[in-house]
């Protein structure tokens, strides 16, 4: 009986302990309570890192790449696909398109997160905190700028008097605002970049924002507005700061395969580390597949589709023909034709067949086939921004000087005024921009903001829009409604103040 009594006693103690334990609160192990997320400087620094990390989310960077690069004429899609990226390429977008929906969603999540941090830092804080405030303002602004050029019409059309995207700042209380006009967004972007440049005094590495990064983006924004004087002013501020130098020769050929922080030409890129490779979901996997034809060669040898990547999107035939005008052009190192025994392979899924010119700008970082840290701003653009602004101001020789800096670096002969047909210096600048910034998400904007049509006359799935679909010509005028993407239908469903694009 005594044994039983003591057993019962032990029992009762165990039961009571469990009952009390069961009333405890629990906390997740991989997340922190938002009330503790911004309470001191270290927290703010951590949260700022988190804002950068949102850029790395494929729904931002990969979907964004499809939205910004695929409408251009430097690439060709070699076979039909049901993935929404196909519609981005063919100009057949729909309001329920997956990539526009994903990009919009991540972009605004980043903006709201950055605003929370900006609101937590007063304007008279310490230099380090002001630097972080500036970085968050820069990130918010960069994303707003991307949004307005994807969903809003080019600034020169109607002088910005067209529907843009909703603007949010750290004082916003409306979580479902209406669309501001393109002009209002551009004005806000410029004001924010100037403020950010003021606040940022630390010269951080090129994977973070700093004063010159804001100036570089300002140069681009002013150029898009046709404010040529300011475009030149800010490009000069970046060039003359001495922080960046153009890569030359072999270093330039291997631009995208080194460690990003060691690259002296990159002004801002989105850093992926070696353990953050996205594999078949990476931007580069659409552009390249390695391991050679039988799957046993190194990853740097182009191989059949599906070996290391999808390999469905190639450099367009006309782009390669332009590049081939000078076989010594170093920019050939960013194109890797898929050949077997010296014979260029063709993707036979379309008629006419598409030549398989793989693209390597998003591959081989630190030796990993699909790893890349997408570059958003680099020094070469400052020169070409100046060139374009000068060309529009009538300073033909000044424009050519900057074009020649780029051409010399690429190892091709310089241009003189006499070489330019019809005195169309702007045309020469735009052509150099095309060759230099191919696959970096700029081409379609460069054409439409200069009121030029996009003309594709090369094999690619855009021919499927035609009857017969062996006709490879596609012309998109700058006034075409599909030059901008539809506002995602799910956002319109959840925010009735948003109006849809026609």
């Amino acid at each position, binding site marked *: 009986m005594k044994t039983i009594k003591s057993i019962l006693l032990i*029992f009762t103690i165990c039961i009571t302990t469990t009952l009390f334990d*069961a009333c405890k609160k629990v906390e997740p192990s991989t997340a922190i309570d938002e009330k503790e997320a911004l309470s001191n400087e270290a927290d703010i620094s951590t949260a700022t890192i988190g804002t950068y990390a949102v850029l790395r989310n494929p729904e931002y960077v990969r979907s964004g790449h499809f939205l910004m690069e695929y409408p251009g004429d430097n690439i060709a899609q070699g076979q039909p696909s049901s993935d929404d990226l196909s519609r981005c390429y063919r100009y057949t977008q729909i309001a329920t398109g997956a990539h526009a929906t994903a990009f919009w969603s991540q972009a605004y999540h980043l903006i709201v997160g950055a605003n929370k941090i900006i609101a937590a830092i007063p304007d008279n804080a310490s230099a380090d905190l002001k630097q972080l405030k500036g970085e968050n303002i820069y990130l918010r602004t960069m994303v707003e700028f991307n949004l307005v050029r994807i969903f809003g019409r080019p600034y020169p059309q109607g002088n910005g008097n067209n529907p843009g995207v909703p603007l949010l700042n750290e004082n916003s209380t409306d979580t479902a605002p209406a669309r501001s006009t393109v002009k209002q967004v551009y004005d806000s972007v410029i004001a924010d970049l100037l403020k950010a440049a003021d606040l940022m005094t630390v010269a951080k590495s090129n994977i973070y924002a700093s004063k010159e990064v804001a100036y570089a983006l300002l140069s681009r924004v002013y150029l898009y507005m046709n404010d040529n004087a300011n475009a030149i002013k800010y490009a000069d501020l970046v060039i003359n700061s001495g922080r960046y130098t153009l890569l030359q020769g072999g270093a330039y050929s291997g631009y995208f395969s080194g460690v990003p922080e060691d690259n002296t030409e990159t002004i801002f890129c989105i850093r992926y580390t070696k353990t953050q490779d996205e594999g078949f979901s990476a931007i580069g996997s659409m552009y390249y597949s390695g391991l050679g034809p039988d799957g046993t060669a190194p990853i740097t040898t182009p191989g059949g589709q599906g070996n290391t990547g999808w390999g469905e999107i190639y450099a367009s035939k006309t782009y390669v023909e332009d590049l081939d005008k000078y076989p010594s052009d170093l920019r050939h190192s960013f194109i890797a034709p898929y050949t077997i025994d010296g014979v260029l392979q063709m993707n036979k899924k379309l008629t006419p067949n598409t030549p398989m010119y793989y693209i390597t700008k998003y591959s081989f970082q630190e030796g990993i086939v699909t790893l890349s840290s997408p570059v958003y701003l680099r020094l070469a653009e400052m020169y070409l921004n100046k060139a374009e602004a000068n060309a529009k101001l009538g300073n033909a020789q000044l424009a050519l000087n900057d074009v020649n800096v780029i051409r010399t670096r690429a190892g091709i002969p310089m241009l003189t005024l006499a070489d330019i047909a019809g005195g169309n210096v702007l045309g020469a600048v735009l052509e150099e921009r095309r060759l230099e910034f191919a696959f970096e998400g700029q081409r379609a904007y460069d054409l439409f903001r200069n009121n030029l049509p996009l003309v594709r006359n090369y094999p690619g799935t855009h021919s499927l829009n035609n009857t017969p679909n062996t006709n490879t010509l596609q012309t998109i005028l700058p006034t075409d409604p599909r030059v901008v993407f539809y506002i995602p239908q799910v956002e319109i469903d959840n925010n009735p103040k948003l109006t849809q694009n026609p």
Partner: protein
Amino acid sequence: MNKFYRRQVVLTTLLLMFSIMAIAQVRVTGVVKDTDGQPMPAVTVAIKGTTNAVSTSVDGKFSISAPADGVLTFSFIGYNTKEVNVDGKTSIDVVLSSSMKQLNEVVVVGYTSKQVSQLSSSVSVINGDRLRDVTSNDVVSLLQGKAPGVVVSSASGDPTSVSSILIRGAASISASTSPLFVVDGNIGGTYNASDVESVTVLKDAAATGLYGSRAANGVIIITTKSGKAGVTKIDVSSTVGFNTKTTGNFHLMDSQQLYDYQKTFYNPDPSVLKNNTNWFNLAFRRALTQNHTIAVSGGSDKTQYYISGNYYNEQGTLIDNNNRNYNFRTNVITKLNSKLKLSVLLNTIYTQQTYPTDNLLYDAYLNLPFDPAFNPDGTPTDGRTYPGWLGRDNENPLQGLQYNFSNSRSLSTNGDLNLDYTITKHLSFATYNRITLYNDKYVTYYDARTKSGGANSGELYNTNDYSSRILTSNRLKYDNSFGNHNLTLLAVGEGEKNHYDVNRLNGKGLPPGRTAMSTATDIISNPSGGTDEYNFSKYLGQVDYNYAGKYFFVGSYVHEYSSRFGSNNPSGNFFQAGASWILTKEDFMANIKPITFLKLRASYGTTGNAEIGNYAALGLYTIDQSASYGGVPGAYPSQKANPDLTWEKIKTANIGLDFGLFNRIDVNLDVYQKTSSALLFQKPLPATSGYSYVFENVGSIRNRGVEINITSKNLVGAFKWETNFNIALNRNKVISLEAGESVVSPGAAHPIAVGHDMNDWYLPIWAGVNPANGDPQWEKLVTDASGKTTTVLTNSYTEAAASKQYTGTSASPKFTGGITNTFSYNRFSLSTFFNFVCGNKVYNDSRFYFDNDGLYESYNAMVPASGWTRWQKPGDIATEPKAVLGGNHDSNSQSSRYLENGSYLRLRNVTLGYQLPQNFLDGIKVRSARIFISGDNLVTFTKFSGVDPEVDLSSGTSSFKYPISRKLLFGINVGF
């Protein structure tokens, strides 16, 4: 007197003398009572072999003169007739038991055991043998079609997958709709199909009451077997059989058919016809199923035991897919002394599973018949390097399957330690304690020589996770009777703690064929892992009263706390009440002979649901690796806070009628209404709020329905035939949402809108094919200046997507049920079991890939279903648009085009069994032996054009389905 008369008198006197001397008569008196202890009037007490009979009086008493060596029979309609030898006794008291088997069954209902006849609630009981007609290791799938209102749907024929179960319709949007599982008296626990004695499904508030706080979706109580005193039994059973895949009405094209189809929109080279690979057949096989159990049970009055071991091995019909289970259970119940009873229930289950890799199922559907699977030397071709490979994914899964694998092993251990202590005759205390530990390891390997592993020179992934649960439930019970009044009071205090942790790591750069993590030379991504915890604690009280076994009343109150809810409202309060009346025990019913049993019951109460994520109420910044940048840890906002988040509540009202006719037909009829309020759901937010959704308690959903269960003994002679038919109708409607909103997810295929069924389809409406040009057409709503809306046709999907409408159909079935017929003659028995689902529409998502009018020339296509025609020239009236390379105006985008009738009737099981003759068995010292042959899923009647109309009914979508198996099994059950 004449001579005749004198002879009569002498003979009669002699006869009387002899009869008195030869057969001694006894006057026997006694009382006849029923199993409730109530006296039974009007019972016929007869002397066997004669017509002498009397009836018992109103207080059950009788008095009869019977031969001292005679036999008395006691009979009453609806009760088992009893025979008692007189043996010279003058006083015989008899207890008659009801012959309604189902009324006698004792079921465990909320911390107590009761006979079904005493319950005020809606309950279905399925005992072990009826459960195990179908062969599966997943008890949930065994419940399909066996109880009205219980709808089991299996989205896959994969033996490692589990079925989903819905009781009385879905009452929740974002929280789980799965019922609560209770094993052997406590929430949670583990069990194996071979050890299950019975399954009780509790459906209304009074039944689920005591689990009330978490029983909004119903409760399934599983009771495992236990030994019986005095009888030592050894039972061995073995089943072996074969499974093959079923593909319904769906057929993929072969080379010739695909070539002919592609010629209409593309220019395939005729050389593609040289191969005709049937990928679907290559990916599937005839698979083997085995199920072996040995169980020993027995005991004495003091101790009873049940020990069993089970081995279950089911191969999947998809190659390389397997589920192997080893189960061991020991149930020991012993009386330590006259007041203390100890039960120890231990269960260990070790599972090994292998899963298909290399996109095997996906490639089986989509690979082209033009591509060969094997080289001339018999080795699998490699889709990446085979010259002229046409399939889009450049993948031959058989090549990867030579080297790649994905498998897991898990061990779960469950121990119950229960003590019942009788304090006084009326007061008892019980403490039921459970600990469950679970551990598993997953390994996935992709070899460097294959497509899946080539880019990284080999990939290896390991995941290890562990979970533990400790639960204690302590009950105080007071039981007393005052005359005809019987009262039970119950108080319970319960607490539960749960812990989970996981870690994951991976490696790449492995030498071909090497699968140890140490041979990897680098990592693919950073190691990850974390922990999760949640707790519940609860207090409740119950009052249970009955008068004379005729009138029953039960009421209870439950208060429960959960760590999952916001700091403002972490606890919920619930109450339940039920009452019932057994009419056949009333005097006025005694003479209505056809009605052998009649009971009316009603219940009302509230139950709750807490099945959302563990931290849904908190506002969070995530600090995991997705928030790191440049190698530095970061944090970004990941979840919006809601400190008011609390329990979902459901009010259920149920009225039921149970009656038996002619002692041959039992009918249960239930009418119910359950209304959920304060629903937990993820309300979508505009992206400009910084979040995609927030968890809130909003809105109200109502489910109403009728359930009927009929068991009928049609023939009871030498040839027996019994039918069980059950059917349920459930109608779902969203009653209100928060803040005057009318829709939860505007634009979604299931928008969940006020006034509609939760699963109503909302899609662009397909309007057929334009006869002039073969374009697809959808409806577009145009509103003119005066507000009038007209419908026009458009071939632009963007316009169609902006004009979505309710199709008037839903993914919820109109009615569901099952029919079982059991025939037996002599020692043979045959049972057939059909289940049916009717009135739902299924979205056949695989048609996006197979019926897309030329979008893909590098994927296979389906053979058009009967009645489908393709547009070819102007003027054609056709069902399928013109085939155009690259797709025809996005014709395969989501719309009512792919919405199909999902109704079906399936012959789920046929079993033919033979019981070996007793005298033969006695000769070999065997207690019982039965052999049987059974077939599962033999025939399905449906119009659905896909592989299988059975889908997870909450999504209503059929995609690349792993087809269910048709099984043919042979088995033997032997008892010693």
